[in-house]
């Protein structure tokens, strides 16, 4: 078991957004957090990273209680995080974005850049461009690549395919599967339910901050009224 | 050894003048969150306009009015470019304005006497045959008359729907705009009013001291006024005046400390250093100031009348 979230109550300022959520991520798994927007998916990821307020509950990573540990130390412990918006450094070049991803490692990162570029050939020709000149899909790939540069042992992805065209989204999904196959477990919030269930191993369905269904992706996918379940209509 | 009573009265007069500056900054910063770091510029404009006009033998009422109008107008004009932007831009613009205004009075000898300043400004009220002390008392009466007027104006504003709009703008500009308030106009209006009050304080200052020179209007003056508001309590007019008294008392006592205890420090340096330390301490440990902002409905008197009415309505609804 890599990550375990126990009875989490989290939110912003005074308002809890998610209530009593428990999540488990095991080795080599893609675990999906699904639910309409406002259901608290992002909040869960942010509270793991320490960007949202944890009112109750515990977060355990590799057997250590990491509740309230600042983000830069979590990164040092091997957690990679890709936020949904502003997930790149717009005023830096693509190459610099990648180098910042490997900030914590002392050794030369040139080889890693090459390696990650093998993984994301789309980024190859644009290393010297300012990152805010990239298109939406390229930004998302860059964000993923940046997180991978840190050689994470757990990756948290917040809606990696939001506002991407279907084709680009498919590309991102296939990258995510490849990352999993490299042995990095992934906890991702997603809105593309069907596609996500197809690639994920386990899923939690959240509605209005509560978990209304969980289980292996196959089981959930089999549910005939998936749409209604997902929107909380069932 | 100076006359201690005179010294005390002088301090009281100063506190009155600075009380007005403090009230005006409270209006801008405390209620509207406008960072006017150029308070001294408007104070100086008021003082110089008053000095020039008083030497031309205009009566006090006229030159005080003109001084406030000119200061208010300059305030309005220079704040416009920065008002739509973030508060730090206004702060920088205003601090720069203070320096530029000083540059003008230093260099325009024909108008403002250059580095030597203007002297021989007659006091506003001249009564024949008064002793020095009595004349000082007349001055204090005049200054406190103006202070009370300013206080009343500020309180009326704070306890009116206008003040409620200012507070709304301070907390959330977008909210104010979404509920029909022309944020820009309110800010500009408040800034102009605050500057005008500073101009009036400047006019009082000029006729009280009898001479003006560029060296009286250093940025430390602005800082003292900020100190008064922050120490007294932003968005609390009583606090602002209290702050003025406290800071003035603090300044005087640090000077006395030098005179009577004989510290080997320059009094001005000591005063500024202690003030700076105090302000940092207050910002650190009590940013809400001595007197907190009161969270009450607009008009207490009105409320008292209203509560029984509210109760009556309640029983009526229940029956």
């Amino acid at each position, binding site marked *: 078991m890599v990550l375990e979230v126990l009875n989490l109550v989290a*939110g*912003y300022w005074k308002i*809890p*957004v998610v209530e009593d959520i428990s999540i488990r991520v095991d080795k080599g798994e893609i675990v999906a957090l699904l639910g*309409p*927007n*406002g*259901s608290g998916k992002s909040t869960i990821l942010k509270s793991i990273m320490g960007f949202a307020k944890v009112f109750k509950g515990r977060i355990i990573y590799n057997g250590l209680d990491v509740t309230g540990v600042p983000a830069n130390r979590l990164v040092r412990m091997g957690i990679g995080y890709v936020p949904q*918006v502003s997930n790149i450094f717009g005023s830096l070049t693509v190459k610099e974005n990648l180098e910042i991803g490997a900030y914590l490692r002392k050794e030369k990162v040139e080889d890693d850049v090459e390696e990650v570029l093998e993984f994301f050939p789309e980024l190859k020709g644009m290393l010297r461009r300012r990152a805010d000149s990239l298109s*939406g899909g390229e930004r998302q790939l860059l964000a993923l690549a940046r997180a991978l540069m840190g050689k994470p042992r757990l990756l948290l992805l917040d809606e990696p395919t*939001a*506002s991407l065209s*279907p084709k680009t989204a498919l590309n991102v999904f296939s990258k995510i599967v490849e990352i999993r196959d490299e042995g990095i477990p992934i906890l991702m919030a*997603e*809105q*593309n*339910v*069907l*596609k*996500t269930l*197809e690639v994920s191993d386990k899923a939690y369905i959240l*509605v*209005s901050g509560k978990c209304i269904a969980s289980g292996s992706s196959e089981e959930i996918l089999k549910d005939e009224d*998936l*749409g209604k379940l*997902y*929107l*909380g*209509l069932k | 050894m100076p006359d201690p009573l005179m010294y005390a009265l002088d301090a009281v007069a100063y506190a009155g003048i600075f009380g007005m500056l403090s009230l005006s900054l409270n209006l801008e910063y405390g209620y509207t969150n406008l960072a006017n770091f150029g308070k001294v510029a408007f104070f100086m404009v008021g003082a110089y306009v008053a000095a020039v006009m008083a030497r031309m033998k205009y009566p006090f009422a006229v030159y005080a009015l003109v001084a406030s109008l000119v200061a208010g107008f300059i305030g309005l004009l220079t704040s416009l470019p920065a008002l739509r932007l973030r508060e730090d831009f206004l702060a920088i613009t205003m601090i720069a304005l203070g320096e530029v205004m000083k540059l003008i009075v230093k260099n325009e000898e024909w108008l403002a006497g250059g580095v030597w300043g203007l002297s021989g400004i007659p006091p506003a009220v001249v009564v024949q045959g008064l002793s020095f002390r009595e004349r000082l008392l007349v001055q204090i009466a005049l200054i406190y008359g103006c202070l009370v007027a300013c206080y009343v104006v500020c309180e*009326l504003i704070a306890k*009116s*729907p*206008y*003040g*409620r709009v200012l*507070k*709304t703008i301070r*907390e*959330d500009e*977008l*909210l*104010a*705009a*979404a*509920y*029909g*308030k022309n*944020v820009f106009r309110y800010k500009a209006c408040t800034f102009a*009013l605050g500057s005008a009050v500073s101009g009036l304080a400047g006019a009082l200052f000029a006729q009280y001291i009898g001479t003006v020179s560029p060296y009286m209007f250093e940025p430390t003056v602005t800082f003292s006024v900020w100190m008064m508001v922050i120490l007294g309590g932003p*968005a609390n007019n009583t606090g602002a005046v209290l702050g003025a008294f406290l800071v003035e008392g603090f300044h005087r006592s640090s000077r006395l400390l030098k005179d009577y205890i004989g510290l080997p420090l320059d009094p001005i340096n000591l005063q500024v250093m202690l003030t700076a330390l105090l302000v940092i301490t207050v910002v650190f440990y009590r940013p809400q100031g001595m007197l907190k*902002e009161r*969270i*009450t*409905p*607009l008009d207490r008197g*009105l*409320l008292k009348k209203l509560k029984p*009415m*509210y109760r009556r*309505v309640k029983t009526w609804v229940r029956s």
Partner: protein
Amino acid sequence: MGSILNTDNLVKRFGGLTAVDKVTLNVEEESIVGLIGPNGSGKTTLFNVLTGVYRPDAGKIFFRRERIDGLQPHQVYIKGLVRTFQTPKIIQKMTVLDNVMLAVRNPGESLLAALFRRRRWMGFENRLRERALEILRFLGLDKHAYTPASELSGGQMKLLEIARALISEPKMMLLDEPTAGVNPVLAYTIFDRVEELRKRFGITFFIIEHRIELLMKYVDKVYVMHQGKLIAEGGPNDVMNNPDVVKVYLGSV
């Protein structure tokens, strides 16, 4: 009953991103209309364009047959179109009552009136206060009328937002996620109140809501937004059985 708000090919771009893409919609008078769509589909941006926070790059907005595009937010408000915000915008350092009362344009809001003609606005203020108390009672907040707004709970803050929007006697209200961060019981209360307001005062509602299960019980019509475009409209059942909508929410395989 005619239409109260309609837009014609409304466009708003941010750099290369088209946040609102040729939106043409029509809200009937005295109806409750929902606006749903996945995150980042441009719903809140649409609200911001409608209320003048952003200037549209193209297209027209008509409110009661009057052009309102290009107006400043405070001018839009004066026309009778009022909005609430996703995260409640509550002035912490005011009482609950003042938080409500600030919404109304008041003769005492001019500097001169505040100083010299106090009689004139005080009467208005008193009447306004009574109305505010009435509205607070309607929403169950009257007990807290004189407490600082910072002492309210998250759900109560949402109600306070609605109270504030109500007192301005709008013709139409735009509610941005009125039930986000609110417990289910209170969420139903909020929607019950909305329904009641529509009946009693004839206010039109346009509501962004994520709790689709809740929204569907109350609305007359739903618009579905996706990547800045309106992809479906119609009654709740039609929309929820529309394959395009399901596809938007569940994604494609």
